[in-house]
C-alpha cells in the first residue's frame, strides 16, 4: 500500500492547486477530527495538504465598518481567550470555550470545524445566530456565503471541490448586545445533545432584536423567525419564553442518536431556550 503523500505549502494558491489536482487529497487544519478519522481508518486519502504554514489563514483582524475577520487556522483556545470578541461577538468566544477539552481546543481550528460541519458541533449554531459570513477560496477565486447558506446538511457544506474555508467574518452586531451559548452535553467536553445560541439586542433595558439558533437539533442549525419576533417584541414572561421555545422545538428536526432520542431533544428545547435567554439577560450587555 502506498503511503499518503504529505504537502505543507506556504501559499494558499498552492494548497488550492494541490486539492484541485487530486480529488483524493484532503486539507488538514488542526487535525482534531481528520487525524482521529485516519486513526480509525475511516479515511485513507491519497494526499494530505496541511494548511499550518499558510500565513493568509492566520490571525484575527478588525476591518473597516466594525467587522471582524477570523482566519480559518485560528484555534478554539485563541478564540475563547480573544479580547477582540466583544459585544454580540462574545457568543463565538463562549461557543469556542465549550468545544471538547483544553487539549483539543489548543489544536482545533474554526476553519476545520466549520468545513467539517458536524451538526452537533458548537460553532455552526453560533455562526448562524451571528449572521456570520463564511469566506471561501478555490480554483475559481473567492466568494463568501452567509453561515445559514453554508451549512447544507449532516457533514455537508456549500464547498465545491478544491475550495477551502479561509476565514469567518463577523458583521457588527447590535450596539448593545447580550449573548449566551447554552449547551447541554452528557459530560464535560462531549458534543452537544442540544445547544442554543442567543444574541439579544438591547436598548434601555428592552430587548429590541433577538437571534436564536439551535445546534444538535437537526442536520443544520435550526432557526425560527416567529420565535425571534416574540422574544424581541414582548416583555419576557415565562409564557413568552415558553412559546418561543415551543416554536423552536417545532422547527427542530432532531434524530435519535447516542446522545439522546429525537423526542428527548424536542422535550428539552423549550427549557434550554428559556434558560439561554434568561442567562443572556442576567449577564447583561457586554
Amino acid at each position, binding site marked *: 500500500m502506498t*503511503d*499518503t*503523500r*504529505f*504537502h*505543507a*505549502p*506556504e501559499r494558499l494558491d*498552492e494548497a488550492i492547486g494541490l486539492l484541485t489536482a487530486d480529488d483524493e487529497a484532503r486539507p*488538514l487544519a488542526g*487535525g*482534531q477530527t481528520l*487525524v*482521529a478519522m*485516519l*486513526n*480509525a481508518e475511516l479515511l485513507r486519502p491519497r494526499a*494530505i495538504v*496541511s494548511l*499550518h504554514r499558510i500565513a493568509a489563514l492566520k490571525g484575527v483582524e478588525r476591518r473597516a465598518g466594525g467587522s471582524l475577520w477570523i482566519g480559518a487556522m485560528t484555534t478554539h*483556545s485563541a478564540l475563547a481567550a480573544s479580547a477582540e470578541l466583544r459585544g454580540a461577538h462574545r457568543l463565538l468566544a463562549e461557543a469556542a470555550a465549550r468545544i*471538547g*477539552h*483544553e*487539549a*483539543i481546543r*489548543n*489544536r482545533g481550528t474554526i476553519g476545520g470545524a466549520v468545513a467539517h460541519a458536524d451538526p452537533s458541533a458548537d460553532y455552526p449554531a453560533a455562526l448562524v445566530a451571528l449572521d456570520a459570513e463564511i469566506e471561501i477560496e478555490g480554483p475559481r477565486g473567492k466568494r463568501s456565503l452567509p453561515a445559514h447558506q453554508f451549512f447544507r446538511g449532516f457533514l455537508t457544506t456549500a464547498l465545491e471541490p478544491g475550495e477551502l474555508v479561509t476565514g469567518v467574518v463577523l458583521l457588527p452586531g447590535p450596539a448593545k448586545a447580550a449573548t449566551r451559548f447554552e449547551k447541554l452535553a452528557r*459530560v*464535560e*467536553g462531549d458534543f452537544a445533545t442540544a445547544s442554543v445560541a442567543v444574541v439579544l439586542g438591547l436598548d434601555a433595558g428592552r430587548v429590541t432584536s433577538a437571534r436564536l439558533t439551535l445546534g444538535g437539533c437537526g442536520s443544520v442549525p435550526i432557526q425560527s423567525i416567529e420565535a425571534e419576533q416574540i422574544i424581541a417584541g414582548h416583555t419576557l414572561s415565562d409564557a413568552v419564553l415558553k412559546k418561543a421555545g415551543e416554536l423552536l422545538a417545532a422547527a427542530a428536526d432532531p434524530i435519535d442518536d447516542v446522545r439522546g432520542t429525537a423526542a428527548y431533544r424536542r422535550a428539552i428545547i423549550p427549557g434550554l431556550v428559556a434558560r439561554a435567554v434568561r442567562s443572556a439577560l442576567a449577564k447583561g450587555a457586554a
Partner: protein
Amino acid sequence: MVTTPTISITLNGTRRSIAMSATTRTLMTVLRDDLGLTGTKDACSQGVCGSCTVLIDGAPARACLILTATLDGASVTTIEGLGSTEAPGPVQQAFIDAGAIQCGFCMPGMIIQATSLLRTKPRPSRDEIRHAISGNLCRCSGYAKVIEAVELAASRIAP
C-alpha cells in the same frame, strides 16, 4: 513543499532531528515506536481519553491527533521530560505521595495536564482542578486522589 522527510523538534529540552518513516505518522506513534518514549500512553486514538496528552510549545495537546510532520520547529514535552524514576518532578512526586496512582495508565496524561494547570494557575480551586482534568479519563475512577494530588503539588510548588 512536498514531504519533509526529516523534521527538527525540541524534545524534552533537547534538539532532535526526526526522520519520518511515513508522512502520516502521529506524534504518539513516533514517540512510542520510533523514539522508545513509552510514557505517552496509547488508548483511544480518538483524542477522547487524554492518556497521550503532551505539551506542545507549553500547551496540552493530544499526541494521537497530531501528524508529526506538522511539528517542525516545535517544542514537545512528554512525561519523561518532567522527571525520572530516580528524580521525579514535583507533580509526579505529589501523585506518588497522595496515593493517586492505581493501574497508572492515565497518569502520564493526568500529570502533564496538571503540570500545565499549575503553571497557569498556581493555586487552583477544586472546581478548577476538576475542570482541568475533565478530559483525562481514569478507568480505575480514582479521581478523588488525583484531585488531592494536584492540591498537594500546588501546596509544594506555590506554598
